[in-house]
């Protein structure tokens, strides 16, 4: 009987989880949801861009490292939006130990404002896709966040071991006032919560975000990419389940080289694919790694013993985020996202 105890616990856990009322996304018409919140999904999607506001919020991040250490970071930042698409994030101060020191950390965070506002913060980026890939648990509940009335809903990704988002939307504007990202075991991966917010702010002194990487968006199918990039952009044939191409652009790296950037989304999360055609002798990705700090998985038995050097792809994991980069068949590729590493490698493998 003692040996059966873990199995019994597993089944009990599953039975308990089954008791929750999980529904497909479609809050309009759901009993118990406030009328003000019914049918507001479009506004929720647009709220970060068409709402004028300024607020201070607490950001929490937890990352598990390979050595078993969990790095917890917490700091405050001030977010401003003028309601016409312009925004600014000003890091205020750290509330935990930060890397490498507080002034440097805050400076670096300030430089990442564009990425944070557009990609890190919880967004419903594609409503139909979000409905397809996520479901919500129950009808949600009314909560108070930063003195505002909000409606808090729990969203679950439609895959086993998928993440859970507990999101509180402002009932008037649809803005996300609080969001917690949890792993499958309920551990906090990231959190964001406004402590104060003003919807009629004075923004004359705010320096709004200007992209620093010369980003130029274009439609992938429009043929514009080749003109902007100077080479033919390519996309992987295999992409992780549930993701679709969301945006395409050209970006310039620190060495002045242009890359093709493809952003994929599952409706909420983002996955990035970066690609460029290698110019002979001009740029090398730092693929040289010391034997002490890496382990090579031979792709086949001939690979290490063969006379020809095979292409290499470098893989790195930081918590739930995986990054893969390499030069394969003369193409530089970088893939980063919160998906299994096998999916990233498949993306590189199928880009031809």
């Amino acid at each position, binding site marked *: 009987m003692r040996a059966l105890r873990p199995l019994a616990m597993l089944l009990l856990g599953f039975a308990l989880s089954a008791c929750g009322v999980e529904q497909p996304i479609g809050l309009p018409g759901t009993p118990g949801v406030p009328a003000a919140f019914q049918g507001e999904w479009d506004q929720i999607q647009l709220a970060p861009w068409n709402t004028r506001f300024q607020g201070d919020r607490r950001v929490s991040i937890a990352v598990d490292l390979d050595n078993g250490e969990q790095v917890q970071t917490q700091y405050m930042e001030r977010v401003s939006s003028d309601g016409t698409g312009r925004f600014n994030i000003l890091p205020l101060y750290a509330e935990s130990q930060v890397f490498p020191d507080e002034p440097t950390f805050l400076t670096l965070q300030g430089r990442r404002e564009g990425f944070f506002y557009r990609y890190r913060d919880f967004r419903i980026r594609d409503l139909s896709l979000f409905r397809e890939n996520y479901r919500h648990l129950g009808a949600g509940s009314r909560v108070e966040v930063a003195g505002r009335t909000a409606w808090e809903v729990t969203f679950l990704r439609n895959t086993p071991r998928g993440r859970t988002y507990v999101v509180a939307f402002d009932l008037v504007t649809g803005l996300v006032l609080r969001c917690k990202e949890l792993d499958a075991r309920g551990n906090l991966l990231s959190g964001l919560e406004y402590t104060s917010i003003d919807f009629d702010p004075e923004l004359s002194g705010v320096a709004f975000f200007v992209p620093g990487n010369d980003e130029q968006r274009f439609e992938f199918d429009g043929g514009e990419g080749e003109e902007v990039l100077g080479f033919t952009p390519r996309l992987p044939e295999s992409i992780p389940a549930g993701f679709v191409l969301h945006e395409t652009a050209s970006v310039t790296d620190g060495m002045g080289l242009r890359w093709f950037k493809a952003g994929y989304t599952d409706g909420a999360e983002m996955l990035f694919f970066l690609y460029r055609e290698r110019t002979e002798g001009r740029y090398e990705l730092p693929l040289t790694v010391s034997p002490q700090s*890496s382990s090579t998985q031979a792709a086949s038995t001939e690979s290490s013993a063969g006379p020809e050097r095979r292409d290499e792809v470098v893989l790195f994991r930081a918590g739930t985020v995986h990054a893969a980069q390499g030069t394969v068949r003369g193409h530089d590729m970088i893939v980063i996202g919160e998906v299994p590493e096998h999916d990233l490698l498949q993306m590189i493998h199928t880009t031809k």
Partner: protein
Amino acid sequence: MSPPCNDHRERLLADHECSSSEKHLGECGECRAWWVKTERLTKALSGLSRLDAPVELAAAVQRSVSSAGLRIGESVDDGELSGDQLAQRLDSDPSSLHPIFEGAFRNLSRLHAPEILDDLVLDPSPLRDSRTATLLSGLSRIPVPQVLDRLVGEELESPARHRVERFIGDLERENVPYALDENPVRSIASRFGRSNRRMLVAPLTAIAAGLILWASFGGGTRVPETTEYSFDVVRVHSPDQLSPLANSFLSGMTGGSRLQPKTDREGSPR
């Protein structure tokens, strides 16, 4: 101590190989004991590191010299002597050095002789003849942490178990194959409704968990399925080994968090 003894001791201090005094040591037991003690003291002193004069000595001497200069210079019209004038006075009247340096030394903080010096003089143990032993014995003793006793004791009680635990900790963590996540669920979803799916997924999940455990502990280190790739996969453990562009996207995705084990110099406590 007789006057001759005193003379011999002074001569010995001035010249260690003074033959007449060495002869006296053979005759006078008291002086012989004194000489042994003195030699030990000399040896100990020569083994000590030289301490620099305190920085405040210069300032203290300058103050004393100035005040002495004022006193000596009472006869001078402007009531104050320059450095050169003072030097001339000191040359002509050396006794005026005494009040100057008395005052200067009085202002200095007293440095105590190392305790080891007392031990060396008082303890004639043969071990003390070894300079290294002497220096080591002078160091403060730090007790072994109590936890070390406990850890060593536990390890000695069950060495095999601890060795296994250590090696398991070093093994690379295996990820569950992604196919296990997606494929079974998708095939079930296509055939059954949501409620039926749960009924099936529960036991399947349990079975899958059992299989994973069996695969993890029963079969040793398993090579991931990478045979279909046209490239080799190199796993790195530091974001510094990624390109700057990849690093910048990774930093964005992880919210600017630290992504490698901390070193002693890093981090700012709050």
